[in-house]
């Protein structure tokens, strides 16, 4: 029920109505709950209403943190891989 989809604003008409693009489909959306929305912004859409504007800077920060995790994991994985091989040899 609280499912919200990230979508890009493609059209804003008068009275806060407009459309977003979600995976190539244009969906009618009401923007009355947000301030200063422009075409090109990313928003979270829920039940036909945009409920939040995506903060791109915060998004970039999270994604780069996650990429760091993946790199760490790769290093750990190498170690683990060696351990497993040793185990197999011993077992």
């Amino acid at each position, binding site marked *: 029920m609280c499912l919200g989809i990230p979508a890009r604003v493609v059209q804003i008409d008068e009275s806060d109505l407009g459309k977003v693009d979600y995976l190539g489909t244009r969906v009618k959306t009401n923007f009355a709950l947000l301030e200063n929305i422009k075409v090109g912004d990313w928003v979270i859409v829920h039940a036909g209403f945009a*409920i939040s504007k995506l903060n791109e800077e915060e998004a970039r920060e999270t994604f780069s943190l996650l990429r760091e995790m993946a790199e760490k994991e790769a290093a750990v994985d190498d170690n683990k891989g060696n351990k497993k091989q040793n185990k197999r040899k011993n077992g």
Partner: protein
Amino acid sequence: MKELRDKKVIRGLLYEIENRTQALSSSPRIMEVCGTHTMTVHKYGLKNMLEKAGVEMVSGPGCPVCITPNEIHEAAIELVTENENFILTTFGDMTRVPTRKSSLQKAVPAAGSMVKIVYSPRESLEIARSNPEKQVVFFGVGFETTIPAIALTLREAFEKNLANFSILSALWIIPPPLRAIVEAKEIAIDGFLYPGHVSAIIGEKPYQFIAEEYGIPGAIAGFEPSDILLGISSILDQIKEGKATVANEYSRVVRASGNPKALAVMEEMLETKDSYWRGLGLIPQSGLKIKKRYSACDAEIRFNLSIKGGSGDLPGCRCGDVLQGLISPPQCPLFVEKCNPDSPYGPCMVSFEGACFVYYKFNPTLKNKL
């Protein structure tokens, strides 16, 4: 955005989580409050992965379709079966909830009446406009994520004097049941994963009492696998450091103070009331009702509905226990054989966010049992 589902990222986060749990004396139990979180946790197999990493996940009350007592569903069913020329609009899941009076999907409407599924509450306004000879009631259910949309729809109906439109409301606010769960002390929770989209509306502050009064850590999280693991990591950090806060791990969507415009329209149109939750009982100030000033659009008043307290659960259904995190769905004796998505017996098997539905759907071995 691919990082959010990337296997390497997920493994990296799980490794971090395992490192943290190893330093703890017992496995922490974390409640994912929101049904959409439950969905992600199971869909991507995180439940088992986390168990291996030393974290027990329990599902919470965050499915509005599930926690709405049968008494309200039955009032909606009565409206369309006992009144002619009535259109009841609602979200799809709501039509399939079985009650003592059948379900909206199966009940036979009176002459000229019907049930219509809508995606957005605003569609109901269009339906009301194009059917001036009929009464249109939107059976609106939701948490804070959905409530602003319903409040705006209400305001528009009122402003435009739409005489044949009203709302039967089942509106719930998330923080009060969390207090109820902690106070009940039936289940010990070491951390709360707070719902991302409810938080996009209400911000961080409404959860603060959980950290301050009960010392329980928590984190707001988004809905992708990595989002959830980030939230859990943050909770484990808090446990380790012996401090409790409301961390925001979904800062790309959630602002500390929420969405002021949404909060303002809620405040303008609605006011809090004590409400019955399925399983959790009567919780003070946990629901919202339409303000008196707008009561012309309140279906409960317009049609003189008397909705009793209590859940009105069907005998044998354990949804109430599932919603409190007291049992997991497979522990309900009706699970799978007598209750499954094709023939649900309780609301937790109806909704896409219901814990029983999610357990069933993402556990392929269960289907063979049928």
